[in-house]
């Protein structure tokens, strides 16, 4: 993060890098300045307070609540699945992570359905938005995910035990890649 303020120095490649960094930095600052001007010129002060509040809360909720909680959950998971070995632990963790990411995008749909209370015909409400059964879809998705992870864990566990018996060299054993 050291940038020579005076100007480019050194070899040709270093000069190029200096110029690219300086240009990008200047463009970035210009865009930020433009944004500041845009906010002040187009968004009323009362709304600006709302924007600042949303930015602050987003940072606090994400950095102060979500990340610490997921880190704790990850630690707890490591203890719970300790007996599985690193490869299968990775499978369980990966499945949970995929499920969490999909839930992050799908859960707001379910919440929006509750909050916006789509009503019957004749109410004038738009019947073409938020009409899916998202709770059911998310439930099915989790079931499939858990079943798939369980099958992999069971299959590798079973296969692993058998191959120990038949003394197949460890390196030739298929299944999810060992990680570590």
């Amino acid at each position: 993060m050291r940038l020579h303020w005076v100007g480019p120095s050194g070899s040709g490649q270093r000069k190029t890098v200096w110029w690219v960094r300086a240009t990008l930095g200047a463009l970035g600052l210009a865009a930020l300045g433009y944004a500041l001007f845009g906010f002040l010129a187009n968004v009323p002060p009362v709304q600006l307070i709302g924007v600042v509040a949303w930015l602050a809360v987003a940072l606090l909720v994400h950095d102060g609540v979500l990340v610490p909680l997921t880190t704790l959950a990850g630690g707890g998971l490591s203890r719970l699945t300790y007996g599985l070995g690193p490869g299968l632990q990775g499978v369980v963790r990966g499945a949970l992570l995929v499920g969490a990411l999909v839930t992050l995008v799908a859960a707001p749909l379910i919440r929006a359905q509750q909050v916006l209370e789509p009503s019957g015909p004749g109410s004038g409400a738009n019947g073409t938005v938020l009409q899916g059964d998202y709770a059911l879809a998310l439930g099915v998705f989790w079931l499939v995910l858990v079943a798939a992870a369980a099958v992999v864990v069971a299959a590798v566990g079973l296969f692993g035990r058998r191959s120990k018996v038949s003394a197949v060299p460890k390196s030739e054993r298929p299944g999810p890649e060992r990680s570590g």
Partner: protein
Amino acid sequence: MVLGRWLGLAFTVCFLTGLFSHLLQDPPGWMLFLTRPVWLYVATQGIHVTTGIASIPLLVAKLWSVYPELLRWPPLKSVVHGLERASIALFVASSLVEVTIGLLNTFQWYPWPFSFRDVHYWLAWVIIGSLALHIAVKMPLILAHWSRRSDEAAIAADTDGGVPDSATVPAPTKAGRGHNWSRRGFLAAITAGTGVVVLTTAGQSFAWLSGLNVFAPRRMDTGPQAVPINRTAAQAGVADAALASEWVLTVSSGTVQKTFTLPQLAALPQYSYGLPIACVEGWSQGAQWRGVRIRDLMATVGAPADAELQISSMEKGGVYGRSFMPAAYSQDEQTLLALELNGKPLDLDHGYPARIIAPGRPGVLQTKWVHKVEVI
């Protein structure tokens, strides 16, 4: 680093497609309007919303992988360091808010005390500026990462294709992870999660993925006449006026003015085109539209070919109340004052008795319940 690259790409794509959409809706004098391909806006706005959804898992993963940086001690080393941290805080907060309000907007859910349109647009400038600044600041790290990668490739080539142990490449993000959680496993899970999220939502914008659409707020082929709706007649408060038997369309150019009843419009030459309607919220729908060419209609009042038009809806006020149509669209043979949709008269919610449909324009400009077309 890998996540950052993908996220940076996603943000850049979102910025450019969003800017395009903004320029179409609020065009400066130099704006170039393209009417072909007719699915142009379907593509750009579908990509905008889908990439925005894809950036949610990427953003969460990137922030999680750099979280240890937040806790690094001492928190402030110098004024420059403080400024860098403040710029990162702004970057992170803006990105989180931007993707959140963008997603909720596609649900037509607005639980915030500010204008979505303005804030989403100006935050985009904050984010793209912060991204450029961030790359400028981190460039030595990025270059070091790349040269390490090429060293790695060179080693691999030297050792006859053998892949070197990934442990020899120290990832700066490793510190935050559990000891059993490999970098590769983490990236694979993020890739899978992003893939699932994209595949289960992109079907609201792209017909070839509509079979997988389970987590998008919109479905294709739903609604009256198998076309979704942005705003119903009841929401717009136009039902009575639109259904009134005394409805006439007023067409004017300067002092020349004509009125047409619905039967008179239907007696003019009718043309039928398959055109998509694509909403700023990302959903789109192909449909067959039939009606009068706008350029034929304007010829009846002797409007000049390069005239810009103002289209007025029976809906009063707001962004839907009226729209402006540059000559590029009004002169296009496929731009219609549509009276029929998919073989039937327009449904009330689709703009009965007459609505605009033009190729390659945002749905918000395809004005419904039209009652006046005038040269300005």
